[in-house]
């Protein structure tokens, strides 16, 4: 049973609905008893205690974020300590740099990522991974997943797969190159909620 350190009733978490599998993140948080809202506009960021950027297409997300001022508003909040969790495309959006394509990112966490690093969709896979301090293995689903190719010394690696970091944390920022929201396992979401 999940115990939220702050008391679940007091928290309100936003899930970016700009594009991607935001429904799955929302359902996961709701199952944990966390109040969750879908956020699409910059001003809506002021009414939540943290934000999840879901899986999807990072190029699409960044483009829309920039168009409507969501990019600047979110960047400013993150610099002031706003907790964020990004999965797959969300991790790319939060990264410092995309190494293999010319695209912008929020430069929130000190990691460099390579997009589609495991190949095309036919190479997408699922596998069991071990996560620091987790008692049981986690089923990780990698879909056209990015790979972290470089990370700064302030970044903590919580899990690795074949020598590459796949779950990382820096301050109040958590990123995963896979999709915990597609499983029934809430443990990584619990980890994030207790960072908020």
């Amino acid at each position, binding site marked *: 049973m999940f115990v939220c350190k702050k008391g679940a009733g007091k928290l309100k978490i936003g899930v970016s*609905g*700009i*594009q*991607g*599998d*935001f*429904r*799955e993140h929302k359902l996961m948080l709701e199952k944990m008893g966390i109040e969750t809202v879908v956020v*699409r506009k910059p001003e809506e960021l002021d009414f939540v205690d943290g934000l999840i950027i879901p*899986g*999807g*297409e990072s*190029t*699409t997300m960044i*483009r*829309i974020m920039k*168009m409507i001022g969501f990019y600047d508003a979110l960047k400013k909040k993150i610099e002031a300590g706003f907790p964020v969790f990004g999965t*797959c*495309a969300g991790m790319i959006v939060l990264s410092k740099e995309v190494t293999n*394509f010319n*695209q912008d990112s929020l430069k929130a966490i000190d990691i460099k990522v390579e*997009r*589609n690093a495991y*190949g*095309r*969709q*036919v*190479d*997408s*896979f*699922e*596998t*069991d991974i071990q996560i620091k301090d987790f008692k049981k293995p986690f089923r990780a*689903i*990698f*879909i*056209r997943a990015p790979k972290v190719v470089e990370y700064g010394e302030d970044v903590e690696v919580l899990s690795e797969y074949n020598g590459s970091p796949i779950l990382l944390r820096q301050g109040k920022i958590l990123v995963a190159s896979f*999709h915990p929201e*597609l499983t029934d396992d809430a443990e990584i979401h619990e980890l994030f909620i207790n960072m908020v």
Partner: protein
Amino acid sequence: MTDKGTWMVKEGFAEMFKGGVIMDVTTAEQAKIAEEAGAVAVMALERVPADIRKAGGVARMASIKKIKEIMEAVSIPVMAKVRIGHIAEARILEALGVDFIDESEVLTPADDKFHINKWDFKVPFVCGARNLGEALRRIAEGAAMIRTKGEAGTGNVVEAVKHMRTVMDEIRKVQNMPEEELVRFAKEIGAPVNLVAEVKKLGRLPVVNFAAGGVATPADAALMMMLGADGVFVGSGIFKSKDPAKMAKAIVMAVTYWNDPEMLLKISEDIGEPMEGLEIEELDVRLQERGW
């Protein structure tokens, strides 16, 4: 254990397209315009449906050269179409490494009775449907994503609306149905009862459900989202419009902000001339009638 091509990996991939626009493109240059505009994926084609309609004859899978050229041009996922039932075309596209296959009524069917057994493939499939029975038959065959058929290449949204409303209406009906009626209902719509039961439990299709076939403006795209689509395919609507880059960007925005009239107004203000539309009654061929 590491597994590729599982249901989770295939259906999960489709979930990533939600709130996004998938655009038909026929050249590398168009693919780049689509990516730049914020498309979540492109559909690589020899011709857009409006031109397939005009050309007549047998429409087949696009040339490998063309699909390769488009795969090399963009970083977003690339989809391609195969003829209904054409197992060999699908095997070729899987070997090529396209990210998603559309077993599509827009091409001339290769089999007049059977669709592809999509469970047999590592690459995920999307299929068209006009109603719940058709959607669940395709899912039973292994489709990881469904789209309305609409009437492709017409720039007329009426058929897509009809198909989305039909599917949603049947889902609502199933939700309110007592358990003992499920088997008979499944028989009536020609769908496996376990999938009907899953629809009842979820209150939606067990896979992502996009709109397609006639979307030509940002308002059309927003309308489809209002009716319950998870996202939108735009075929001829972009590259048959006067200013494709502008139209593509506007439709992308409309699919995210479909529920925000002020934003829709802003998005729709400067989009140039949309593609010309066709009356459904005056069509020689109805593509939606293909598929079984």
